[in-house]
Structures are given as structure tokens and as C-alpha cells.
């Protein structure tokens, strides 16, 4: 019997390419080629957006926690309160036209609007609002802590949050909390109001409609979710009963992973808005006729963490030396132009109370002196975990070079981002470079993450960034707890500014950059404004000329 020839499939022998190499090369090709902007038109009444949407897991506001689904939910659902359109740092009424807060800060009474209609044609009632908040606590999915941190539990939530009449919602807090903190959390995606009857009609095995709401919607926002095909497209259509006017009856978001393909779609008129262009592409498009670029600072920061389990990081001078060794401006200018800016506070610019000054700059002599003072005149060696994804790999190399200049030899360990997160959650890293996005638009979110660690043991209930890096500072922890309960809004802001100043001195985190989200709008397209959080980004005002 003859032997069959041994052959290798051509697909198995092709060169392996990293995503970064692929994106860089593709960006270079398309940017260099600069196809002319000969726009056809997307269908009338349909706004087409090209975006990477493979992060979507669920559209249920009680579960949604990723960027894209939160953004879509922000257009499909409304909340009791939301950001003031003129000043994001202030809260304004949305479904609640007014509210009262008791003097002790424990009782919130919301008076609801009567003309917010679901696609079914029914007007929203306080019962819908109460049910929506109940199910967040009862399901207790990932974002559930935004409400349960106030002391709501499965057992008490129905008693503490209730509709007293069709248009009045009463919320009682077990412990007094800062009103601005509570309202900010209600403005988060978990505060979205769903139509109780529709959700319960689609309930399966007592899941409060969770499975159904993963890919359907029951909100009274200007749009409703029509179709989601994972990693392909999302289609939302206008809610015919909504009284919020929309510029386009339909918004289609297509999953285009490759930035160069997004750019080509913009140039050919197949996309009205593209969301993931590279810095070079944005630069080239800026010079093109007719297109416009819109951008906004995001509540996300890139930071370097130092695990204080290592003796050298327990010395405050070492932490300071590292903060003074980095060339922040060079990283922002050379590696992340248009996509990240320098930020040196754990509260990104735009969040209430954020410090926007930049006290640290590269000062090798000062950093070396601090290291010597700490007992490390010749530096030391340390390992740093970093995601291989852009731009983390390049930033990590820049940090490595800057630290080498003061004698700290950093060995980079490159991996998948979730791998770095897994390692940091297990507290087995030495240093790591990662990003952190605020959970809700209140300073408590990041202050707690970066500074609060009441129990450093493995049994701790609060295991966020401070815990993950063995940073236990009782004074800062107490300050964070106090600020969360401060009833005076202005005084509270001052407290967070103090916390940030102290954290800069003591915390084992080098805050490097703040993310800037940028979108490019095709010629004649206007009205698209990116919010500082994904769910603050609105589609209703998008207009096509």
C-alpha cells in the first residue's frame, strides 16, 4: 500500500503575527495610502458606527459592565438621575423631576415624571423604578455592589426601596451616606429603569428576566435594542413612544476589529462614525476635508502598581523615587498621542474633586537621591507584569528605560491582560502595569480602590487595588470611609482632594495616563458627543447632513 504524502496545511505554516504587529502594519498601509474621501452615503435615517464590540456580554443593566453594552444601555434605558449635560460633575434629574433628602441623609424621596413611555406604550411608574433597583440587588451580578454597598440586601431591599404611589419612590438607607455619592451611584447603569410587566413576562425559573434582558431591552430611553449578534453587529431602533427626539431612527454598530478597515469604511461612506482609529490614523484624518474629530477624557487610568509585599516597596522613598523617575510627557507624546494624556491623580480629570496638577516630572538626580536615602544607592531588580496589548507593551518599555536610569532593573513579563489581572488578584506580582476604570461617576469609586484596605488578610472582604498590593494605610482608609458619609457636598470634594495628595506621597501606584476616547465623524455628520463614562455617550443627537 502506498503511503500518503506527508503534507502540512498551508494555514499551519504561515508566519505568526502578533495583534500589535498586525495593527501597526495595517495602520501604516492604509494611512500611507490615504484613499480619497469619496463618500457614498449610509442609508437615510440610519447612523452606522464602526467599533470593536467584542466586549459585550449582556445588555441587562443589572449585569452589564463592559464598555460597549454600557454605552448602548445608556441610549436604551433612563435612570432616576443622570449627569447634568452642562456639567458632568453635577447630578440632574432624568426620570425623577425632583427629590428630597432628609436631614440625616438616610431618606430619599423621588418624584417621577409621568410621561416616560416604554415601547409597549405604557408610562413608567414608581413600581417599575422600585422593581428595577430590587432586581439589581437580588440578582447581585458584577455591578450589583454599586447598590449593595449602601447596605441593601436581598432580604431588606423591598422594604427599603418602595413605591409610595404611582409617581413617588421612597428609598431608605440603612446607614447615612453622602447624598452626592448615592445619587452618583443611581446615575450609573445599574440605576436604569426597566418595565416590570415586560421583564416578568419573560422571566425563566425566577431569574427576574436576566436571561431575556441579556439580548433584549425593556427601557424607556430614546432607543430600544433590536438585535445583537455577538462580535458582528448591534442594531437599536427608535422607541416610538419616547418623547426624546432622535436624529436617526436606527443606529447600527458594526464590529470592525481592524482600525484600518474602519478608516476605509469612513472614507468610502460605509460608516458615519468610527471609534477605534490609531493615533496616526486620527492625525491623518484630521487633515482630511469634511471629517470632524470628537474626543473626551474617560474615567480610566493607566497605572503602575508596586506590591508592598516586597521590602523595597515598603519604603516611601523608593515609591517616591520611582514616581520622580518617569518621563510622563514623553510617554504621552510619543506613545499615546490623541489617545491618552498625562494624569497623576487616581481621580481622572473630569471626575468630581479630581486634582489636575502634575507634580511629578522626570528628575533623575532627585530620584537617585531618594533611592540612596532608602538604602538602595545601587538600585535593585524587580519583575513587572504587563499586557502585551497596545499600548501597554510600549509604555512598559518606556517605564523600564526610565527606571533603569536610576538603577532599578526591571524585567518585563509580557502576557494577556487577564493573565496580569489574575496574577495581581492573587497578589503574586512584584510590579504590574494595568488600567483602572471608575465604576460610577463619584470619587468614592477610585478612592476606595486605590486607598481603602481595612483588612490586609486573605479573608478580607474588600480586595481591590490597595489590598492587591498590600497597601494598608489606616489613615487613608478612614478618610475614604469618612468622605463617603459626608453630607456636605463641597466639604466632601475637599476631603477627596486631600486623599489624593496623601496618596501621591504614600500609595504604591504611579498614575501615568488618562484615556481619551476619540471618534471620527464623516463629512456632514454631527451631534455625536462622547461621555466621560460609556453610558454617558448619547446617540439621539447624531445628525447626518
Amino acid at each position, binding site marked *: *500500500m*502506498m503511503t500518503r*504524502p506527508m*503534507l*502540512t*496545511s*498551508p*494555514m*499551519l505554516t*504561515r508566519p505568526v*503575527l502578533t495583534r500589535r504587529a*498586525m495593527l501597526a*502594519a*495595517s495602520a501604516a*498601509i*492604509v494611512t500611507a*495610502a490615504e484613499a*480619497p474621501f469619496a463618500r457614498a452615503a*449610509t*442609508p437615510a435615517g440610519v447612523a452606522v458606527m464602526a467599533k470593536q464590540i*467584542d466586549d459585550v*456580554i449582556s445588555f441587562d443593566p443589572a449585569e452589564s459592565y463592559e464598555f460597549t453594552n454600557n454605552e448602548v444601555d445608556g441610549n436604551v434605558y433612563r435612570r432616576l438621575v443622570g449627569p447634568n449635560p452642562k456639567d458632568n460633575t453635577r447630578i440632574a434629574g432624568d426620570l425623577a423631576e425632583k427629590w428630597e433628602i432628609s436631614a440625616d441623609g438616610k431618606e430619599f424621596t423621588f418624584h417621577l415624571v409621568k410621561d416616560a413611555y416604554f415601547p409597549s406604550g405604557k408610562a413608567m411608574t414608581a413600581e417599575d423604578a422600585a422593581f428595577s433597583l430590587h432586581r439589581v440587588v437580588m440578582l*447581585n*451580578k*458584577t455591578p450589583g*455592589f454599586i447598590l449593595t454597598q449602601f447596605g441593601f440586601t436581598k432580604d431588606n431591599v423591598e422594604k427599603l426601596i418602595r413605591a409610595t404611589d404611582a409617581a413617588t419612590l421612597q428609598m431608605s438607607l440603612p446607614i447615612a451616606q453622602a447624598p452626592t455619592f448615592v445619587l452618583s451611584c443611581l446615575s450609573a447603569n445599574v440605576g436604569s429603569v426597566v418595565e416590570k410587566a415586560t421583564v416578568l413576562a419573560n422571566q425563566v425559573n425566577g431569574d427576574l428576566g436576566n*436571561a431575556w434582558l*441579556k*439580548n433584549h431591552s425593556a427601557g424607556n430611553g430614546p432607543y430600544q435594542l433590536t*438585535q445583537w*449578534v*455577538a*462580535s*458582528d*453587529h448591534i*442594531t437599536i431602533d427608535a422607541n416610538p413612544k419616547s418623547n426624546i427626539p432622535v436624529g436617526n431612527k436606527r443606529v*447600527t454598530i*458594526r*464590529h*470592525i*476589529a*481592524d482600525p*484600518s*478597515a474602519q478608516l*476605509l*469604511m469612513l*472614507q*468610502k461612506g*460605509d460608516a458615519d462614525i468610527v471609534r477605534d482609529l490609531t493615533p496616526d490614523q486620527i492625525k491623518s484624518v484630521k487633515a482630511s476635508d469634511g471629517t470632524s474629530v470628537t474626543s473626551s477624557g474617560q474615567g480610566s487610568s493607566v497605572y503602575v502598581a508596586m506590591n508592598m509585599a516586597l521590602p523595597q516597596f515598603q519604603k516611601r522613598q523608593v515609591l517616591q523615587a520611582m514616581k520622580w523617575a518617569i518621563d510622563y510627557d514623553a510617554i504621552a507624546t510619543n506613545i499615546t498621542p490623541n489617545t491618552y494624556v498625562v494624569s497623576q491623580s487616581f481621580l481622572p480629570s473630569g471626575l468630581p474633586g479630581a486634582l489636575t496638577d502634575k507634580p511629578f516630572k522626570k528628575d533623575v538626580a532627585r530620584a537617585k537621591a531618594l533611592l540612596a536615602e532608602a538604602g538602595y544607592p545601587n538600585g535593585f531588580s524587580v519583575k513587572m507584569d504587563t499586557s502585551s496589548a497596545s499600548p501597554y507593551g510600549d509604555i512598559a518599555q518606556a517605564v523600564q528605560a526610565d527606571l533603569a536610569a536610576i538603577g532599578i532593573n526591571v524585567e518585563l513579563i509580557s*502576557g*494577556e491582560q*487577564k493573565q496580569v*489581572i*489574575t*496574577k495581581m*488578584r492573587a497578589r503574586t506580582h512584584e510590579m504590574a502595569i494595568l488600567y483602572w476604570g471608575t*465604576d460610577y461617576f463619584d470619587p468614592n469609586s477610585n478612592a476606595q480602590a486605590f486607598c481603602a484596605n481595612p483588612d490586609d488578610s486573605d479573608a478580607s*472582604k474588600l*480586595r*481591590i487595588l490597595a489590598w492587591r498590593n498590600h497597601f494598608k494605610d489606616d489613615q487613608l482608609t478612614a478618610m475614604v470611609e469618612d468622605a463617603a458619609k459626608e453630607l456636605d457636598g463641597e466639604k466632601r470634594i475637599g476631603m477627596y482632594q486631600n486623599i489624593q495628595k496623601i496618596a501621591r506621597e504614600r500609595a504604591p501606584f504611579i498614575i501615568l495616563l488618562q484615556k481619551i476616547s476619540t471618534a471620527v465623524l464623516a463629512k456632514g455628520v454631527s451631534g455625536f458627543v462622547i461621555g466621560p463614562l460609556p453610558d454617558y455617550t448619547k446617540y439621539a443627537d447624531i445628525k447626518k447632513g
Partner: protein
Amino acid sequence: MSRLRTFAAAASSVPITLFGLVLVTFLIGRVMPIDPIIAIVGDHAQNDVVEAARLQLGLDRPLAVQFWLYVKLLMQGDLGRSVMTSNPVTRDIAQYFPATIELATVAILIAVAIGIPLGVLAAVRRGSWVDHGVRVFCLAGHSIPIFLLALIGLLVFYATLGWTPGTGRSDVGLEGMVPDVTGFLTIDALLARDWESLRDACAHLVLPAGVLAYFSMAYIARMTRAFMLDALSGEFVITARAKGLSAARVIWRHAFPNIAVRLVTVLALTYAGLLEGAVVTETVFGWPGLGQYLTISLLNADMNAVLGATLVIGLSYLLLNLLADAAYRLLDPRVR
């Protein structure tokens, strides 16, 4: 009867191979340094949520128990639920795999239609400018990274000349217009007698299938040339020529049938490669196929989806190998 028995013996190895595939993929998924819970609940989730998810997925149980439970469900046709899409993995595969099959099938048809004649031509005109031309053409197709080919294709035929549509399987205006019956957009459009959607689906296929075809065609042409050179130097060809048969008859009736056997294997493996390996092409063209599904699942540590997709790809490989085996036995009288 003996042929049937040999085929049955080959087929009997399929379950064992599949079991090995499941076991290895399962173990890789469980020992990789990523906590799958992070993919589900995110980095910010509180401990109670993390633990509840771990419990719900049975990840607190010993590895052997987890594997046994997985295999038990697998035997019932249940591949579990994808974290990423929240759908049963079987439903996801039924949705994404037809897109890949459609793309790969068109690509292999184009590749065969061009690659085989080119290979034969190069062999017949060995050493001539035709042979060199074919070699350069094939070398480019096989050595240029496929994402580069895809982007150049988009830039030239979509952005500059405007001959083909851009990314995706259909235009935005036609999205969701055709009822989903088979998952193959062209067939569904045909069934619905929606000619506009059919034309649009075919137009969207041209560029990604063309790029994949160029890549595969280069390989097929080179292999065809090599096999053909071997066959043309055979004594039976010299005899045929000595008998005064026409060149075409010598090539196509005498030499070519002799290389068909080996070509079948090449084609089967190339097609299998297209079914699993179109990841980059699918990414650049925004093509919602199984390759893209598998990659995204892997990056999200969505292990049920990874296992399901790997199993389907593995099964496709095995089936294509079996088919190649069967065809091999049919085509070659010496192994009958």
C-alpha cells in the same frame, strides 16, 4: 468488502481522536494562567460575586470531576453555554460556522479552478518564462502575510476602484432582511428569492474569498507543479508520447489522473486549513465566522466556547481526512 472494512477501521479512530482533542483542550483551558471567572464577572467584581460564579460553573470541583461532567453533557450533545454570548455553544456554532464554510468553500473553489491549471501549465512549460511567472505569482501569494493581502485588497478593490463592497457579510441596509434558514447567506437569499440580497451576499464574498483563494491557490499550484513534474517524467508518459498522442491527451488523460490522488490530500488539508485558519481574514473583513468566534472566546477565557469550536474544527479535519482517504481508495486502483 475489504475496502469497507478498511474505511470502518479508519472511521473508528475518530472517537478516540476526538476524545484526546477534548481532553487536551480541556486541560489547557484549566491550567492556563487566567482565572476564567475574571472573564465572566470582570476585574472589579466583589468576592461574593466571584465565588458565586465559581460555584455556578462548578470550578470549585476537582479537575477530573469537571472533565467527567463536561464529557457527560457532551455525550448528550450539550456543549455548555458561552459566557461571551450567553447562548448555548451549539447555537453559536450553528450561527458562526456556516459563515466560515461559505467563505472557505468559495475560496477553495476559486483556488482549485485557478491553482490546478496554473500548476499543470508551469510543469508542462518547465523552465520557461511561464514557469517563472507562475512561481513568482505563487511565491507572492504564499509569502505575503494574509492580513496584508486582505488590506491591500480592501484598499485597491474597495477603497480605490470601488469594485467590491467593504467589510461584513452584507450591506447595512440589507442586514436581517433574509430569514435565517441554513445560516448560509447566499443559500438563504436564494431560498427567499431575494435577488438583491443574493447579489449583495455574493458581492461581499468576492474579496475575502479572493484573498483566501490567492493564498491557497499559491500552495495548490506549487504542489500541482511538483506532482506533475514527477508524473511527466514517468515511463508511461514517455510511452504515451511515443505512441503519438496529443499533448493535451498525454497531460490530462495520462499524467493528471496519476497526480489526482495526491492532490486530493492537498485539497482536503487546504480546505480544512481554510475552515479553521481564516481568523485573520475574518478579522480584517469583519466576517462573523468561527475563526473570529474562537479567537475572541480564547481571549476572553470563554472555555466552553473554545472547547466547542475546537471540537467542531477537529471534527471537520477528521471528516475531511476520512473523505480524502475514501477518495484516495476510489481514485487509486493500486490500493483497492
